[in-house]
């Protein structure tokens, strides 16, 4: 259980985190979303005890991060922003160092190292200096380091940044596999990741929590939630728009600008348009290429949440220790 209470942090007068409060229970995979400079990384750094909050408290499974840092830190696996690692070490030496620091001993240590090396497919680079590895491998070494001691709480700052689609898939599978009993917090820019991996999403901007919901609840906030898309061939645009607008429960019709014949029918609140649009298409005898109902667009919700009611653009504030080459 993670309890975060009214966390605040200012840098040189800029309020990076401004009163964040939330709890996370075991089994949850929490996605942390927000524009650059929203305070995501700063919050994570305070969660892991790297920086001390100006006010507020963080408690990890009952251990207060400020009062009992070593006990709290031993419960956490953390991948910092940019996946920093000692570049002159090989992944094997590096993992062995982390295991020693975390007090893994003897057979348990070697078996855990073997396990994470297999899990993250690091076998081929085990004995090469980390400095010489590609970005994807470095990231995976960082993840390996974070899960090495099988932590209760896993905090990953942009875990799939720099990975190719296959590796992304693997890492997401890995996170999902871990999540049964544990607490996982990931920060990401990639919205699809939230839908795929997370059971809960928190959107923050300006150091404040703007939304805290499941990914599908967030999708439901989109104006495209339950909108019906229809792709028509050889139907004059005007006819199609007039006909679609006349469907019962349709609020608006949007015409795609980059694909001729693609229309999106937005519903009135709680309306269900799919059957009606389907019937209309049959009645009119349209040549339908595609017909589907949208779940909602997360990026749309994200933009709405982070740009509306907030005025001027975000100032870059997050500390970036992770810009290592």
């Amino acid at each position, binding site marked *: 259980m993670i309890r975060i209470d009214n966390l605040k*942090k200012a840098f040189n007068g800029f309020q990076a985190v401004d009163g964040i409060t939330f709890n996370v229970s075991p089994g949850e995979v929490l996605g942390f979303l927000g524009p650059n400079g929203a305070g995501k990384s700063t919050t994570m750094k305070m969660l892991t005890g*790297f*920086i001390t909050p100006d006010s507020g408290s963080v408690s990890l499974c009952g251990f207060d991060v400020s009062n009992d840092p*070593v006990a709290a*830190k031993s419960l956490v696996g953390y991948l910092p922003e940019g996946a*920093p690692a000692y*570049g002159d070490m090989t992944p094997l030496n590096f993992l062995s160092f982390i295991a020693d620091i975390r007090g893994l001993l003897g057979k348990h240590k070697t078996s855990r190292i073997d396990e994470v090396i297999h899990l993250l497919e690091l076998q081929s680079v085990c004995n090469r200096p980390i400095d010489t590895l590609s970005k994807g491998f470095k990231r995976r070494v960082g993840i390996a380091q974070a899960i090495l001691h099988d932590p209760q709480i896993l905090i990953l700052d942009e875990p799939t940044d720099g990975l190719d689609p296959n590796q992304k898939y693997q890492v997401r599978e890995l996170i999902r596999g871990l999540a049964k009993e544990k607490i996982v917090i990931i920060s990401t820019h990639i919205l699809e990741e939230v839908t795929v991996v997370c059971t809960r999403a928190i959107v923050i901007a300006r150091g404040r929590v703007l939304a805290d919901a499941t990914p599908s609840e967030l999708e439901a906030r989109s104006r495209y939630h339950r909108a019906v898309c229809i792709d028509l061939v050889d139907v004059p645009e005007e006819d199609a728009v007039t006909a679609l607008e006349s469907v019962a429960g349709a609020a608006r019709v949007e015409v795609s600008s980059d694909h001729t014949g693609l229309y999106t029918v937005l519903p009135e609140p709680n309306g269900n348009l799919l059957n009606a649009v389907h019937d209309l298409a049959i009645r009119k005898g349209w040549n339908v290429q595609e017909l589907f109902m949208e779940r909602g667009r997360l990026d749309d919700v994200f933009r709405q949440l982070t740009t509306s009611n907030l005025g001027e653009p975000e100032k870059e504030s997050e500390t970036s*220790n992770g810009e290592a080459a």
Partner: protein
Amino acid sequence: MNQTGVIFHRELNSYFSTPLAYVFIVIFLMLTGVFTFYLGGFYERRQADLMPFFMFHPWLYLFLIPAVSMRLWAEERKTGTLELLLTLPVSLKTAVVGKFLAAWVFTGIALALTFPIWMTVNYLGDPDNGVILAGYIGSWLMAGGFLAIGSCMSAATNNQVIAFILTVVICFLFVVAGFPLVLESFQAWAPSWLVDGVAGLSFLTHFEAVSKGVLDLRDLLYFLIMIGVWLLATAVIIDMKKAD
């Protein structure tokens, strides 16, 4: 292995996994040779001792030690491993001490590798090996003092060059504080306790006492306290500047 040991071990290995260690040791050995035999007049003095060897150590350390210490924390901060290290379940004290000890032992290794000079002087004459041992101990303690200052400067910045320059300047002040020229300029006007105080802060005064074979507890304490205070300052600065 305890955690200080783990960090010490990693750090010491990292010196030898880069060319830094080898370059440092080779240059250190070459320079000690040059200073001892040419500038120190090792042969010309016709005395079986290592005074010409030890007397240049403060000046050698002034430029070589900051080169070792500058990376201690500045590099961790630059590459982001500081965040990794400090979010592992180790206390800041453990990390500061572990890293310092690695650097100190590393300079100890470089110092120990000057043993051919000791063999030479034993071959040529019959020196007082007790004095020589005291000289080595004093030199190593002084290296520790330089390193502790360097550790603190390295913690204050993420730029290694700045760390180097700051360390050289501060170490220089601590060395010349005991220089006759400086002390005389104080003697002209300052009360004697101030002159003693300035001289008492100097690396040179304490090192010279030790290297003459006088192992006074106060000199040893001086270096240990210097190390302790600067390491404490290191920890405080890291804690303050973590977030930057």
